[in-house]
């Protein structure tokens, strides 16, 4: 199973480090990262494998969102299937 993590907010130092650190802590394996900075605005999309998560996926969603609150970012973690089902036949 794979999840998409999207991170948006004002750019600052160490965003990727913080997010990937949290992923590693809970056992989410990062497969791909796409990132861009437009003016001061930071946007990142991460594709993660979540088969060996140490905690239930719903808790992982909360943990990532809490991290976002702490860092002034918006972090959404969504099951990959929602994107596949919406855009692929």
């Amino acid at each position, binding site marked *: 199973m794979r999840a998409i993590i*999207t991170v948006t907010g004002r750019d600052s130092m160490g965003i990727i480090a913080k997010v990937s650190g949290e992923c590693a802590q809970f056992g989410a394996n990062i497969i791909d990262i796409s990132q861009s900075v437009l003016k001061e605005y930071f946007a990142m*999309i991460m594709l993660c494998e979540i088969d060996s998560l140490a905690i239930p996926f719903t808790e992982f969603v*909360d943990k990532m969102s809490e991290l976002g609150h702490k860092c002034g970012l918006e972090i*959404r973690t969504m*099951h990959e*299937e*929602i994107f596949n089902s*919406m855009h692929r036949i």
Partner: protein
Amino acid sequence: MTEILETINMIREENLDIRTITAGISLYDCVSEDAARFCDNIYDKITHVAEKLVKTGCDIEKEYGIPIINKRVSVTPLSLVGGKLTSDGYVMAAKALDRAAKTLGINFIGGFTALVQKGFTNSASALLDAIPQALSETSLVCSSVNVASTKAGINMDAIARVGKIMRDLAYLTRDDNSIGCAKFVVFANAVDDNPFMAGAFHGAGEAEAAINVGVSGPGVVYSAIKRAGDCPLDELAELIKKTAFKITRMGQLVACEASRRMNIPFGIVDLSLAPTPAVGDSVARILEEMGLEMCGAHGTTAALAMLNDAVKKGGVMASSHVGGLSGAFIPVSEDEGMIAAAAAGSLTLEKLEAMTAVCSVGLDMIVIPYDTPEAVICGIIADEVAIGVVNTKTTAVRLIPAYGKKIGDSVNFGGLLGYAPVIDVNMRSPERFIKRGGRIPAPLHSLKN
């Protein structure tokens, strides 16, 4: 990448959501001669079968990042399983449904329903008598009555009775803006698998249980049309179809997932455009973006007809089973653009009636003056169900003759039920017509065999 951003934008900026996951539950095995035992049976069955509904809904919401606004239960029309219940017995049963809904933590429970399109059974008659008290003494129970069908014609005696029920409900819930009327709907050609309230029930031919899902997304369609600019209408129709496809695919995913987790078979996805009073979540604003100065202007019915058709065409390929009411809803108090158009006098009752001929579902959440005579209410209902019967479609009437309110006033129900100005009604009397009673025969095209 663009697909991911598009999905997230739909959810974040354009109010895309799953409007409801509704668990349909059969109550056939709850029948009992004893009213108290019957109530225990239905309470136990509902709370057992739908035990995981709210948790499942919340889990899916979190894992997929898609808001699921309502979790609901619909049950077999109570008049089919009530046996010899008196109207007092039916009030008890409504309270049992209410208790079950509160135990589960769901938003509404539907199925306090009678099917009387051709005539009354004793049981249906007792249930009808119980509706005003049952709905005014419970908070989560929704009730519906099917008074007509293309096959059976129009039961005018039933229309006379439901007109009185609406007035009684308005009076009994007068301290709360006559909110009882928001939980009561009158149907022609009611459908068995509708997940939307107030008209949801688990029809006579349905399975033991089923998961039905209603999607929403007027904001997404609105934004897509806005981005398209001044293109021809056939291009616009294509765009709406593509958008509806995406919305519905999400509904299908959620329905299948809920079905798997609750171990209840998947029923249908309702291809709906269901508005809310929030800005940016309005069907009326879609019509205006299509090129109307204001909803209700001449051209509104044509625009709505195209929108409704395109939503169905786009949605139907996205889901394995489509059902329910499927189409664009036009509940006045629940749609910010409709509210504005009604307040400005652009959207009249007559125009709304015309619009219901080409969309789902009917005259919905319309506040009328409290002094509207019963016969006039019955006349409005008769007109609306006639549209359904003759056009072989579902139509419905949910009117609120709000206590003490007159033209110029407005009523606020709060939450998703929204707010609305009192709309003008033609008060000329159809009383003699209504008092004739009897049945309007089924139209010729009911004879298809």
